[in-house]
């Protein structure tokens, strides 16, 4: 047999082999459990190798589909799950024991895990065979994503209890994923991503140690269960270096801080979804190239290659992807893994001095930041004091400033903006996905049936036992599984624990933003607004609201700060507001404009609800409604017909222009 050469990969017997590919996933789910099941089975037949379940916002925030705050969001960004009956439908004809199932679930992660275990038990499958991940990283929910429910202490306890449960009952399950993905979506720098994710992992391991439920040997195994979910942006060389830095730093932390002896448990295991923040609404076809380049950053280097990869779709800045868009992204992964020779080589970058130096730089900066946070009391303290949030908000404003001034080039958005219209957008559906409004009826029907058919006493006893465990500090995992088996609903599970732990309301990230908006246009706008003060008798007032359950608040916060910057009085009340609350704010504050930020695709329903609320107060003529967010142009006419005055989308990135447009509206109303 020939000796393998340095450019070849030997297996343990010295034979030349090709690496197996990473797991191919597509983040998917919508409308109802039944519709999503059909989608999953279709994707698996196309060569997808793992499931990545997207839940709708009510499920993520712990509300039943028929709750009034949930209604407009049911089935929009993912599948609604109300009870174990929905899980039976979701995984119908899918062999759990052979699946690697990743669930993007956080505030209700323990509940979804309990449902998965209960499903396995009812199907007679050994839970030790279950493979997969519950995302379950509440730190990044507080910082960036927004689907938290409980305060930090309760959330961290839930995460710890899930690790304690999984270690023996589901040894191949990742009880949580430490996420830096969402931090980059909130504009974190590579250093911030490294530092915040690692300090988050340290906080979790310190907590597991402090709780003392693990022997030393089991603690070491638990360290081995920590996995990460990372982002990859367009600066793909730096991103690859970031991944190498992650691996090295994790190796050092697990060895030096926790004394983990077994090398296997010190491996940095991670999955990736590549960056969506940098995807553009203008010339959206360019995003296909961006996605390809970003995928290279996490696959090129064998020593820092991801375990699983999810790619967004080219049209993500316009709407949720259609099945064809997802297939196109999956094909990219298949070509990269099977057509190219990528998987035939050992690491291509070991020993490269440029890469080594860049990795060292990132490690140094990240270590410094980690030390800073540990010195202030660790990740929980840095969340509660707002330190991490305001750092991210500053990064976001720096990014916006870069794009506004075209210092940071974004092709097709602030440079080379003229182009031939994309034929991809000219199909009958305009190149975007629409949820069939009748599809969510299935979710409501199944919820009603579950409530009617269950043993009401058993359900009540299960909820009481869950609350008792929450109060006395014992594990809530088994009581949650009993709740699942007793057909308790998602809303009931979350309400029971809200009753014990309360609900978290964080500081908004509006402090400390610098927008770099100092020029003649701003001065001119300020004079126009001063003139309005005389005309209206008050300084123009703007209510900035995020109706519904979607928690991506950065856009709304940048708008709130910009509006104050040009001279508005701004009422901003954070996320997760019902349309009624926003209307009441506008009425009691006598606002001139409501600016509603919607990224969940529920803009039509929310426009209806807000307009109806304004009419009920007789304020529909006095208060102008504008929308901002991910809204497809095909919906513009419909929104204008409902009375919306102006719509801003990601292509309206000029903050001064947005403020001018809002001022135009107020001036028009004032003179009519």
């Amino acid at each position, binding site marked *: 047999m020939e000796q393998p050469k340095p450019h070849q990969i030997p297996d343990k017997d010295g034979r030349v082999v090709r690496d197996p590919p990473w797991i191919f996933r597509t983040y998917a789910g919508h409308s109802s459990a039944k519709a999503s099941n059909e989608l999953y089975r279709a994707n698996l037949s196309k060569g997808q190798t793992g499931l990545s379940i997207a839940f709708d916002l009510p499920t993520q925030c712990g509300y039943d589909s028929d709750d009034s705050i949930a209604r407009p969001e049911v089935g929009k960004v993912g599948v609604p799950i109300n009870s174990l009956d929905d899980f039976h439908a979701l995984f119908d004809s899918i062999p759990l024991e052979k699946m690697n199932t990743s669930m993007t679930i956080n505030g209700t992660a323990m509940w979804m895990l309990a449902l998965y275990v209960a499903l396995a038990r009812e199907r007679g499958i050994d839970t030790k065979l279950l493979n997969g991940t519950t995302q379950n990283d509440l730190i990044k929910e507080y910082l960036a994503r927004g689907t938290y429910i409980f305060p930090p202490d309760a959330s961290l306890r839930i995460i710890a209890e899930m690790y304690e449960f999984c270690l023996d009952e589901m040894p191949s399950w990742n009880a949580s994923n430490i996420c830096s993905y969402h931090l980059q979506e909130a504009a974190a720098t590579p250093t911030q991503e490294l530092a915040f994710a690692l300090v988050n992992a340290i906080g979790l391991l310190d907590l597991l140690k402090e709780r003392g439920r693990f022997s030393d040997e089991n603690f070491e195994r638990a360290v081995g269960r920590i996995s990460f979910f990372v982002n990859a942006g367009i600066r793909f060389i730096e991103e690859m270096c970031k991944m190498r830095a992650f691996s090295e730093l994790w190796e050092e932390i697990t060895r030096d801080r926790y004394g983990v002896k077994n090398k296997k448990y010190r491996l940095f295991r991670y999955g990736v979804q590549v960056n969506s923040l940098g995807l553009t609404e203008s010339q959206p076809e360019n995003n296909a190239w961006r996605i390809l380049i970003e995928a290279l950053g996490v696959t090129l280097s064998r020593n820092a290659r991801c375990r699983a990869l999810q790619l967004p779709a080219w049209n993500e800045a316009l709407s949720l992807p259609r099945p064809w868009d997802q297939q196109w992204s999956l094909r990219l992964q298949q070509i990269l893994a099977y057509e190219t020779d990528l998987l035939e080589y050992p690491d291509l970058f070991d020993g490269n001095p440029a890469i080594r130096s860049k990795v060292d730089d990132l490690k140094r900066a990240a270590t410094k930041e980690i030390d800073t946070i540990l010195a202030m009391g660790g990740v929980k303290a840095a969340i509660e004091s707002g330190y991490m949030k305001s750092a991210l908000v500053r990064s976001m404003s720096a990014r916006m400033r870069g794009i506004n001034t075209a210092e940071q080039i974004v092709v097709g958005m602030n440079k080379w903006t003229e182009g031939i219209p994309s034929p991809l957008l000219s199909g009958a559906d305009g190149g975007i996905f629409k949820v069939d409004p009748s599809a969510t009826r299935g979710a409501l029907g199944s919820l009603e049936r579950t409530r009617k058919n269950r043993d009401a006493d058993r359900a009540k006893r299960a909820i009481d036992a869950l609350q008792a465990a929450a109060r006395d500090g014992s594990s809530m995992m088994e009581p949650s599984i009993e709740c699942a088996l007793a057909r308790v609903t998602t809303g009931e599970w979350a309400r029971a624990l809200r009753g014990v732990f309360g609900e978290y*309301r964080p500081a*908004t990230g*509006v402090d400390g933003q610098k927008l770099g908006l100092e020029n003649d246009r701003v001065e001119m706008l*300020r004079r126009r*607004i*001063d003139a309005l*003060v*005389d005309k209206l*008798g*008050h*300084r123009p007032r703007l209510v900035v609201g995020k109706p519904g359950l979607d928690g991506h608040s950065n856009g709304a916060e940048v708008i*709130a*700060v910009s*509006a*104050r*910057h*040009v*001279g*508005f*009085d*701004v*009422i*901003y*009340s*954070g996320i997760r*507001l019902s349309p*009624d*609350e926003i209307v*009441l*704010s506008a*009425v*009691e*504050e*006598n606002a001139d404009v409501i600016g509603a930020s919607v990224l969940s695709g529920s803009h039509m329903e929310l426009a209806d609800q807000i307009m109806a609320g304004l009419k009920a*107060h*007789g*304020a529909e003529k*006095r208060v102008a409604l504008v929308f901002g967010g991910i809204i497809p142009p095909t919906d513009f006419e419909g929104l204008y017909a409902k009375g919306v005055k102006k719509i801003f989308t990601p292509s309206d990135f000029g903050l001064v222009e947005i403020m001018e447009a809002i001022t135009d509206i107020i001036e028009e109303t004032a003179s009519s």
Partner: protein
Amino acid sequence: MSQPPVINDVDLVHRALSRERSAISELVSLFEDRRPQAAARRATALAAVERHPKNRSAVVLGITGTPGSGKSSLLSCLVPTMLELHPELTIGILAVDPSSPISGGALLGDRTRMRMERDEPRLFFRSQASDTQLGGLSPSSFQVCRMMRRLFDCVFVETVGIGQSEADIRNIADRTYLVLQPLGGDEVQFLKAGIMEIPDAFILNKCDEPSAERSFHQLYQSLWLARPFDGGEVPIHKTSARTGAGIEELGKSLLEFVQSDVKRDPRKREAVIFERWVREEWGRNGSRFLADVLDGSRNYLEMAGGFDRGQQDFPGRVGEHFSKKAGR
């Protein structure tokens, strides 16, 4: 500019008194309006409200304290508790936040802390920008309180406590509460804060924190040093918005005050505010004219027939006086 017909404002008052929120909101805006022509409309509205049988005479409670002392969280527990303790009580809240000295704009973000389980028609919440650099009270806070006290049983005015707002609020509120959080250091810090002389009562919030008991005693001792000549003892309430401790007791004590007849004379207050308004608009000459020629603010307002009439007439009086002087 066209004047809306006067009948509208009377109608607005009637709708506001039947708890129609958008009407209350518009009335508040009328009292925030700093254009000269708004004074006449205010006089009409106030006259209408006084004729109306449902007209109230609320107690105004000032809540002040440094940022971070937990005023908003405290109010968010206290207000629902008071509404529950007294099933007919109506409460208005005016929350003042600082304006940017550069753009004049402000971020007003306290509302959602006051979230109720369901829509509560007995509660009205309004934010206001301070319009000043220091984060004290807005010049229109006083004006708004004149109307709000006619529409509710109890009005809270919440200010950001930096600098002079504690002193300002005494000119608006019938009773002023200073919210403090437990301090780590010694009693000198309470004294250094320089705000001990102002409030009628103290609320030591976050009393679930370990240092709270020590802080309570230090505060008690500091009070002796800072206010040696106080007649009675100044009350110190201990609360925790987090655990709910002391909230019901404080609520009961406030309700007792709301239902009592001990109120300050609004005319005295109006006189102080009027003096300040004259100084802002006409400078030292205006102030001297008010004091020397018109025999002081209080006297002038009585003669002119109230605050709004006083504001309407004053520009003419002052103009006449100075043009005569110039002609001489």
